């Protein structure tokens, strides 16, 4: 097994600051924006983007948590059913701009499930997608609006994101080859 670091603590911090600026620029401020992190690592990333936005926009945007387990398309195909966690979105998303946040964009199936889940929770004015890493290999017509870093990968490689809030270790993104 080999492991290569592609983003350091500072790289992640800079990427989040840039994404926050792009979110504010694209939406002409953050008045209608709601950040929704996809469990699990999208959640701390959404929190960090909200903190960065508060720094330069002076406004705290609401942050929600989305669990997409019950919307997966592979239940029963890949062994035991994954544990279902709670979804918690602090306000009605109808009419708002929802920015979905996840750590890695790969096949697009997680995002597809997240879009279905959001549709059941309300009717947002628009949905945008922010990811820390886009590693390619899409299986669905889905693209990200805000990307921390594009990383070309082989399909036998794995992207591992470590975030202090979830993993209890230093931040970092790695390419792992089994």
């Amino acid at each position, binding site marked *: 097994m080999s492991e290569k670091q592609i983003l350091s603590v500072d790289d992640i911090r800079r990427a989040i600051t840039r994404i926050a600026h792009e979110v504010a620029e694209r939406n002409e401020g953050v008045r209608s924006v709601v950040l929704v992190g996809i469990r*699990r690592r999208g959640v701390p990333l959404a929190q960090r983007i909200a903190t960065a936005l508060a720094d330069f926009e002076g406004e705290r945007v609401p942050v929600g*948590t989305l*669990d997409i*387990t*019950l*919307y*997966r398309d592979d*239940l*029963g195909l890949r*062994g*035991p*059913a*994954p*544990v*279902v*966690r*709670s*979804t*918690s*979105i*602090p*306000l*009605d998303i109808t009419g708002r701009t929802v920015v979905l946040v996840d750590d890695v964009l790969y096949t697009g199936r997680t995002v597809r499930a997240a879009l*279905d*889940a959001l549709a*059941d*929770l*309300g009717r947002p004015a628009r949905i945008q997608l922010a990811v820390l890493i886009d590693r390619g290999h899409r299986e669905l017509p889905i693209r990200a609006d805000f990307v921390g870093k594009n990383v070309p990968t082989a399909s036998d490689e794995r992207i591992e994101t470590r975030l202090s809030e979830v993993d209890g270790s230093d931040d970092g993104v790695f390419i792992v080859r089994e």
Partner: protein
Amino acid sequence: MTTLTNTTVAASPATNSQSSPPRRRHVLDLDDFSRDEIIEILETTASMKEVLSRPIKQVPALRGTTVVNMFFEDSTRTRISFELAAKALSANVVAMTSKGSSVEKGESLIDTVRTLQALGANIIVMRHGESGAPYLVAQHFHGSVLNAGDGRHAHPTQALLDLFTINERLGRVEGLKVVIVGDIVHSRVARSNLWGLTAMGAQVTLCAPPTLLGPAALWTATWPNVTISHSLDACVAGADVIMTLRLQKERQEAGLLPSLREYSRVFGVNAARVKRAAPHCLVMHPGPMNEGVEIMPDVATSRQSVIETQVTNGVAVRMALMYRLAEVS
């Protein structure tokens, strides 16, 4: 405005890992559930309860799965609860009762199950008057069987919804003093709750007249830490939960009770008895109630009664179990 709240279940090993739970094919009783598996189901139940609080109370998890509700005994809450749970997960649900089916023409249980299998059933939810009937069905069915109550043997979903309700209200199950009172010897609810409550570390007292309890060894041989009592007044002192069981009127006709009035006076849950329990004590009943017999109407509707919450939580618990079974169907 929609507020979706996060309900948390007492800290557990399951919260720390994303790892998948072990596979489970059937839910027949709680005797083969570990503490960890129960905790995982209670956590999933909290997530399912959040789904039920949404404006659109439906998720696609079980799309394409066929659930057959096979009820050979009358039931309102359990049958409707299972049906709503299956629908909230987007499963196809078909209801079958013995009345109006080929069972009336004499088709055997095994042949009925084979027929349902040939028709594409993935999960059979089964209520039957004979203890053990779901076990027989499980041997002849390639999908999953969910026991919705068999004879006087087991009612695992009732026990899990009771555990969920206790944990939700009191924040834990471990160490709680739980009194189960009523017609215990005939009760599948009591038996399944004994497995669940003892696995979770509660202290259980069984309280009933000797004719409705049977020999003490019947219970202590399997659950050595269970306390036996014939005095409700004595055993409710300091209780955290009083679980009342339905008294079937036939018991009196069978000579097991001198009279319903006497039973009610000695073993009925009334306000004075609830007062002797802990101030936060929960009053539970699996339904349907005989108000004025095993429970007084003022207690049933009091602030300490969680009887309606039990019914509401039943849907979420059954969703959690069906989701867990869907992976193998």
